[in-house]
């Protein structure tokens, strides 16, 4: 089977079990809790000054993303990996979406 078919199946399963929402909600909460979101906001301002302002959103993303990625605490990454492992290994046992 093609790579595409494989990806489609996996994605389909993940969608049907609320998996993506759960994981993104978890990450969002942890990132707010540890102050990452506020740090990124400050970084955006700082980098904007250094850059003489951003012309558009795409530019902002290009400049800020590497810094923002580096600021994510290891504990959040570990927790995310752990949750993903749990979800994927139990994917068939999870109840489906209503």
């Amino acid at each position, binding site marked *: 089977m093609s790579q595409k078919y494989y990806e489609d199946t996996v994605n*389909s399963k993940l969608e049907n079990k609320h998996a993506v929402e759960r994981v993104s909600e978890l990450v969002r909460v942890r990132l*707010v809790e540890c102050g990452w979101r506020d740090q990124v906001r400050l970084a955006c301002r700082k980098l904007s000054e250094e850059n003489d302002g951003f012309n558009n959103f795409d530019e902002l993303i290009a400049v800020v993303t590497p810094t923002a990625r580096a600021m994510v605490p290891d504990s959040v990454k570990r927790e995310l990996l752990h949750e993903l492992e749990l979800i994927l290994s139990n994917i068939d*046992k999870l109840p489906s979406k*209503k």
Partner: protein
Amino acid sequence: MNGCSHLQHFMREEEGLKTYELLHGVFVISGSDERRQAKVINAFCHVCDKRDFFLHVCMHCTFFGCSQHIREHTKNKKHTFSMDISYGQVHCSQCGDYIYDEQLDSIARANALQGDSVKKFVLELVWPRLHVEDKDWCNKTEKMVIDKTTHIGLRGLLNLGSTCFMNCVVQAMTHTPVLRDYFFTEHHQCGGKCLITNLFRDFYTGEKTPLVLNEFLHLIWTQARHLAGYEQQDAHEFFIATLDVFHRHCSATLPAQPNSSANKVYRCSCIIDQVFTGSLQSDVVCQKCNGVSTTIDPMWDYSLDLIPSVTDGSLPSSLEDCLERFTGAEILGSNSKIFCESCQSYQESTKQFTMRTLPVVLCFHLKRFQHLNDLEKKVSTKIKFPELLDMTPFMTKQKNDTILHLQLPYDNKYMLFAVINHVGTSINAGHYISYIRYQDRFWYKCDDLIISEAGIDEVLQSEGYLLFYHKYCLEYR
């Protein structure tokens, strides 16, 4: 916010709004089985097959593109608008940037409320942003430096004859961060001099003389007749009565709400409900057929028993103990059989309370005053309470989550910010004092008109009668 001229044209000439509504509903919210399927089948880049988080859909044709290829597509094909499928933001290739429009925003909000159960649950949890107009803040010219030596916001309260119970409740409420911030901004409009707004503002004038709350006391007396009179009242009863008076006043002055969806049946959009109202889930399980009957009720405060446990006679020793007992399964004996719908007969059952949703401010009432056969006894059991409280063990377990160890909501941490204590051995005599948290790191003891510094240890060692916790991480959406 009116987008750009290109958007206006798109909306006028090419049914832009309908297109947005459809694309947003299907690919961003995906509220139904078919839509979810459609999203899974279609959401990949037509050029490179990538499924990254930056996927956009073209609003003029059926093209999906990743970050690089969508920009190329909109430029080359001269298709101006594309929408990102993670958040539903619209990009205008002629302006070269994302644009924001009120009409698109309201469509997005309306779609979100039609989403599936998990998304809706998550939406309900988030504190709605108070739309403070930025220009209001810019026009304020008075400035003040807040440093370690300022005491703005701390004022003593004169005792008008056994009104220490009222003074404590007022200290706690005026130092509730979210509530105080709300009454500072001009959100509360009730036409004319508002007693409540002035109460908050009086605390922060910078003056150090004690306040006299005769008007406030009079307001509560007229609205809550059962508390009128100069005798000492129970601080907890007074707190509830005050909340009720504030709630009635605030909801009466709200602008007329359009018929909102079933989301908010248990609380209205007045500030008191938004801050103090959580919901309690009660599950009654029939012992015969294991059928569960569930009810959900709004709660303003949590009254916790300090009685010996029925299983081993032990007394609770901490707040967490009390909460464990509160949310533990209780066997309703043969004298209290419940009518079971599926068995169609009276059966023995177990009852369990769990917290379904938590408010921004949690108020715990330790039931230290017991009325047993005309005798009024004060229970002085030492209850340890923490500075930081995690409510996760007491939350309702969502059905989906029996396999995964983490439950939604993921963040249930609360921070202590006020404590009201009853000093003395008898209910009718005795005195109330309060501790409030100030500028995050400091605590002050409020004994009517005497405000003095206190250490966190002193607060945590105190007896504790009413405990006020504030959600630790608040975020806006």
